[in-house]
């Protein structure tokens, strides 16, 4: 046993002529929350499915919790909790029936006690006889998390667990995740939310089947080597069109009452912005580049999807 929960390299997967994942490599330490980002269709779900044995990689090798991802999928399934992107519990079963079923599938001893404890822990006890299909999005997500935690897995694979969930429920969810990580459970979580990315220990950014960046949120921000200026003032919309045309400006993004102007080359950017900074109506401020800026910049560098 090493201290890596996930250690894979060179994973490839094609569906027909389409290469969904190219030379995928990932190391996740035990007790680490690992954020998995990337645009829709970038291969996040495919990668997660390969890690938990739902898809067989075309090539590559590695281990998940010390088990071989190609040959020991049965053992991996027993010790990994996988939460699907779409709610995939049975909507025509009640909450308790769903959990009981999952407990049976994992052959858990003292099933009733385990289910009762899980219901209590998630605050679902009063709703246990409600059909899962009648739950709201937030409750469905809690139930799905309870179900994939039931067999006390060492590794959680969460595929966009907070999509369509309100901010309060999301925050509670992340508190829960951090609590689990503190107990030594590793979590790989895919998301589209930048605030969630900031809450991860480490990040990986996947686009069109390839990993573009990995590291802590801070490292990813540095690696983007972006210089960002924020500007506030009147006529921002027409200003943004003019700024976009300037040399050295990679992206201009509107943020409510300000624009974020970012470029790779600091001197070029500053030279280009100098005449605008002379305008007294505009207030300029140097900004830390956001993760979103970095990712969108990374995306524009690799170009359109193949």
């Amino acid at each position, binding site marked *: 046993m090493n201290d890596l929960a996930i250690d894979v390299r060179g994973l490839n997967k094609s569906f027909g002529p389409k290469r969904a994942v190219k030379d995928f490599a990932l190391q996740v330490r035990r007790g680490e929350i690992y954020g998995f980002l990337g645009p829709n269709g970038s291969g996040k779900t495919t990668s997660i499915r390969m890690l938990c044995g739902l898809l067989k990689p075309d090539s590559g090798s590695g281990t998940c919790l010390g088990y071989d991802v190609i040959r020991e999928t049965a053992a991996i399934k027993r010790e990994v909790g996988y939460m699907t992107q*779409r709610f995939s519990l049975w909507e025509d*079963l009640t909450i308790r029936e769903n959990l009981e079923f999952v407990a049976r599938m994992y052959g858990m001893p003292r099933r009733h006690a385990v289910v009762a404890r899980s219901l209590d822990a998630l605050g679902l006890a009063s709703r246990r006889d409600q059909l899962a299909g009648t739950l709201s999005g937030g409750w469905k997500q809690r139930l799905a998390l309870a179900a994939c935690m039931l067999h006390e897995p060492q590794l959680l694979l969460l595929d966009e667990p907070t999509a369509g969930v309100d901010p309060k429920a999301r925050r509670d969810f992340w508190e829960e995740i951090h609590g689990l990580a503190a107990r030594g459970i590793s979590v790989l979580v895919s998301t589209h939310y930048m605030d969630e990315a900031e809450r991860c220990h480490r990040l990986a950014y996947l686009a069109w089947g390839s990993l573009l960046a990995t590291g802590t949120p801070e490292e990813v921000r540095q690696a983007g080597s972006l210089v960002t200026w924020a500007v506030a003032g009147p006529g921002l919309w027409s200003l943004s069109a003019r700024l976009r045309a300037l040399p050295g400006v990679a992206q201009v993004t509107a943020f409510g009452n300000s624009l974020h102007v970012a470029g790779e080359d600091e001197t070029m950017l500053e030279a280009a912005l100098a005449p605008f900074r002379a305008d007294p109506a505009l207030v300029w401020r140097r900004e830390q580049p956001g993760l979103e800026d970095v990712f969108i910049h990374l995306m524009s560098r690799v170009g359109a999807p193949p």
Partner: protein
Amino acid sequence: MSRQPFSFSRWSGIIIKEFIQLRRDRLTFGMIVGIPVIQLLLFGFAINTDPKNLPTAILAADSSSWSRSLVAAMQTSGYFRITRILASAAEVEETLAHGKAQFVVTIPENFGRKLARGERPVLLVEADATDPSAVGGALSALNQLATSALARDLQGPYADARPAAPPFEIRLHRRYNPEGITAYNIVPGLLGVILTMTMVLMTGLAMTRERERGTFENLLATPALPIEVMTGKIVPYILIGLIQVSLILAAAFAIFRVPMHGSLATLYLVVLLFIAANLTLGMTFSSIAQNQLQAMQMTFFFFLPSMLLSGFMFPFSGMPGWAQAVGSVLPLTHFLVLVRGIMLKGNALHELWPAVWPILVFMLAVIGVGLRFYKRTLD
């Protein structure tokens, strides 16, 4: 490969889950009881391959007592019901063309006198034979009538007019169903038809429903083995099949008075084999189909030839060779032989083998196809 053994606890978990879902699915539950009841009523009561009391018109140009006895004999045969008396030849045409009667009997002038003289007069029966099966039974009864109806009247001085006895006699025994009651043939056959329809359809939907709702991914992520999932999903439907069979058999005995000459145990054994064959087919359909609609379409694609070419609707031996060849692949064809053999003929198990092995072969072939298509992963 890390192998894990078959787990009875996981298997029973899947069965329990299927039962709970089945109980909540009112429509499916209704189908389980509704389809046998509706089919029984439709086929058992409505269909009659030997129709009686057919509307008959008479154009009588002769009013001798011979004519009267002839008409009376036709009515007592049960096939003919005299609904109208015609006055002219023109009406005959109109009666048939407008479907006012199935038969028109024309008794020519001097029928009685010619008969008495032994001149073999001609009696014209015109039938609306648009549907051949509607008039078949009645027409064969007519031939009997010609010799028997007037036998009592042609005595004494008229004895000469009696037909000469044929050189040999044909003695007919209608074995197993002497009265030709359609229900005796149809109701046991319905067992097979209903099982084919519900077993294939419901198992076909069982797996594709999981795939369509996305719950299949969850099932695959658990340590459950394919064999546990597949057999666990099948068990509830075996029970449903047995419930349906018992329902139909109860109706067969209580309402339709279908005889049971063989052993009930043998019948249930054969039923189980047939259920198994249909379930494997349903499972295979659900492994191939992408969604529930496709599974449904496949079921009907299979169900139609099963209905038409198995010998349920039309006599199997009367079909052309190619149709018989297609029909003999279908398990229903052989099941009909089995169930009719057991119930009506009292066949014992060892006599049934020729109809048992084709079902076994069908089942093995289908399992082979199904295993090739079953997806352990999401690829």
